[in-house]
């Protein structure tokens, strides 16, 4: 009993991070209509930036967090302006944008390797704290903080998308860009805005990852894959779906470890992805993907 509870707790912690990555990714996908792979690199680079500010320079932690989020936003926005906007101007297909974002992901990860080296880094802001026991499952205060802060952030995000005018405009663009433009919504502005918000959330995800785990140069690819799978499971382009998918994936990975060797943890995501792509490409929340030409 306590084992399964522990696995569920672990699943929730992983799931919270996946949900953050997936929601930002899904927002960008829903408005921009292409797969922004480099989103994972934003998470990884933010984690390393925090490491740079806090552990290397010795900046105050609060300031370091603020600067890291600003950096993440700037990075995402910069990619949109420098690369994606230029490609969009030529009306390139979403496949080209996908390859470009893949190249950006590798570019940024190689840059991390060149700047910080391949060795695993730890931030060490919170020393290994004593864990709290809840019904036989162990959880550290930091992990509780991760789950709560991601839940708060995700609810704010959902509220923003549902009730705030700009959020509604974003959903309008994702629904039908042409009609949205007729009512006077600038789609180019909405594209930028979704990069700003999505990357900001990615930055926060990066900070949480940095606090909880060790930093590895290739962590961006891994997180991106998980975020993407979560988004597909939940119904790609739907932010609530992505959040649901994130927790679903986190839980199934951790419970799957009960049956499979630990090394196969990453393969579980792909097996789930394949099952969903083949049987239910619309995802759990079942939003139909319009035929696009």
């Amino acid at each position, binding site marked *: 009993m306590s084992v399964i509870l522990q696995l569920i707790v672990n699943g929730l912690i992983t799931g919270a991070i996946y949900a953050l990555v997936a929601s930002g990714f899904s927002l960008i996908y829903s408005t921009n209509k*292409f*797969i922004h792979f480099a989103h994972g690199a934003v998470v990884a680079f933010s984690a390393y930036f925090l490491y740079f500010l806090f552990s290397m320079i010795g900046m105050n932690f609060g300031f370091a967090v603020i600067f890291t989020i600003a950096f993440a936003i700037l990075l995402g926005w910069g990619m949109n302006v420098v*690369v994606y906007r*230029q*490609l969009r101007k*030529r009306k*390139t*297909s*979403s*496949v*080209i944008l*996908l*390859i*470009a974002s*893949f*190249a*950006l992901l*590798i*570019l940024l*990860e*190689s*840059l991390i*390797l*060149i700047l910080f*080296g*391949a060795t695993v880094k730890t931030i060490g802001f919170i020393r290994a704290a004593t864990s709290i026991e809840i019904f036989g499952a162990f959880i550290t205060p930091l992990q509780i903080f991760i789950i709560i802060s991601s839940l708060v952030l995700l609810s704010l995000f959902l509220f923003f998308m549902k009730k705030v005018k700009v959020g509604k405009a974003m959903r309008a663009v994702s629904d039908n860009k042409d009609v949205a433009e007729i009512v006077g919504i600038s789609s180019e502005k909405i594209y930028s805005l979704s990069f700003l918000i999505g990357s900001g959330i990615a930055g926060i995800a990066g900070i949480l990852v940095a606090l909880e785990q060790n930093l590895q140069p290739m962590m961006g*690819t891994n997180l991106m*894959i998980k975020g*993407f799978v979560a988004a597909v499971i939940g119904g790609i382009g739907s932010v609530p779906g992505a959040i649901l998918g994130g927790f679903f994936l986190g839980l199934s990975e951790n419970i799957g470890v009960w049956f499979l*060797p630990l*090394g*196969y943890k*990453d*393969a579980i995501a*792909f*097996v789930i*992805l*394949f099952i969903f*792509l*083949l049987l239910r*490409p619309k995802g759990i929340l079942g939003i139909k993907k319009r035929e696009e030409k």
Partner: protein
Amino acid sequence: MIDAYFTHLLILIGIYLILTLSLQLAIGYTGLLNLGHVAFYAIGAYTSALLVLSGVPFIVSLILAGIVAMLFGFILSWGTNKLRGDYLALATLGFSFVIYNILSNWISFTGGPLGIAGIPKPSLFGISFSSNFSFFILTSFIAIITLIIIWKITTSPLGRVMKATRDDELATKVLGKNTFKVKTYSLGIAAFFAGIAGSLYAHYITFINPSSFTILQLIPLLAIVIIGGLASIRGTILATIILVLLPEPIRFLGFSSSVVGPARQFIYALILLLILMYKPRGFYGKVELE
């Protein structure tokens, strides 16, 4: 010394040519954005290494490496038949992650992260290809055969149906062509040659481990296919030669080896990005990706 280094580069170009020409068949000619090419390369390398080490002659292992990779190509094609564009790209990318995971974790079979060492240099009909020069002859021979076969396929009726499938799958179906079969052939043939290339790589380096087959390896391949231009064989050859040689000068700048590797990846990714932005058709590209 310089000679040995030069031969080494020529061998690399040969192996890359086999990989990029076959990838060109899938991406450029059939329009299948196959991001799982590295997985077929890995399957070929492991198949051949394991067979040779258990006593199978090199020539049989080489061909079986291609065939096993091709079978995986068929399976992947069958599984992703209905997917197009983004979704196909991701499913194939996912495939290469799964293969990478299996190679790293099935320790009793693949050696896990430590890989397989001591793979013998190939010998054919009593002739040993242990020197670099003889290996170069072998590689270029196979690369030329690959080139001829792929060139023949693209100019054959099958090749024309492939191009038709790429341009308009629905219309091709209306004409009574079985596009599923054509796509399966294309992916299968591409996988076959990737497997052959993997076998050559394994026997040349004599050591393989999963980290030789990560998605990082995909970036130079994609860059070559796009820079050469989609559906252009001479473009692919030219781009292969240029891109294999291009990052070589970094070696001589005196950086530590931990910087040289990432710097190579950085250059490849940057080139791919720039070409997509400023010259999306590459050198001799006839079509753009859709």
